[in-house]
């Protein structure tokens, strides 16, 4: 079942923070985050496994709450290069990744 991402779109000024949420109605084994810039291939950001871990990558971090079947992506002090569409992919009991519809992030100067 497709995870639900929120918000659908967000506009920031450079330096502002943002949170993108991903939730599922099914039990999750892992959550994957990808970013896709317009006209380009999706790029892997991080994988979060069961255990409620939090990961970080530069100023982008994420958390995974398996009990709530939710993950959140945190973008701190956003840069222009952060603009793009962020997808979460959730791994369920069928061991397949199902991607959400994406969150369009626009960072303006």
């Amino acid at each position, binding site marked *: 079942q497709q995870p639900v991402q929120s918000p659908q779109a967000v506009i920031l000024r450079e330096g502002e923070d943002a949170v993108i949420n991903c939730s599922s109605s099914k039990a999750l084994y892992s959550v994957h985050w990808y970013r896709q810039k317009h006209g380009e291939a999706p790029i*892997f950001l991080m994988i979060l496994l069961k255990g409620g871990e939090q990961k970080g990558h530069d100023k982008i971090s994420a958390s995974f709450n398996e009990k709530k079947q939710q993950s959140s992506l945190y973008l701190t002090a956003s840069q222009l290069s952060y603009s793009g569409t962020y997808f979460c992919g959730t791994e369920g009991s069928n061991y397949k990744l199902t991607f959400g519809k994406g969150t369009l992030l626009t960072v303006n100067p």
Partner: protein
Amino acid sequence: GAGVSQSPSNKVTEKGKDVELRCDPISGHTALYWYRQRLGQGLEFLIYFQGNSAPDKSGLPSDRFSAERTGESVSTLTIQRTQQEDSAVYLCASSRRERFTDTQYFGPGTRLTVL
């Protein structure tokens, strides 16, 4: 090459014609995936090749869609008797290990337009 490549980058075809889309995965990657991305939508899983095992075709939307892979190299996605609803970007990805949720490296996609 250094990354996943796909060809053609753009394909315009008439309704009812067959099309072939090609994917060259990263060398040494055992798993290969095809996804479809309609405008404003997420990534829709189509098919998964896992080494020498039988492919997982559970995402193919109809029998007009088929795919082949030669060993651990090139894959071809074929759409027969194309329909306008087939218009989308078709993305290919590969991963090192034969596990669906290993890190996937995506190609730039083929934009298919069916007139």
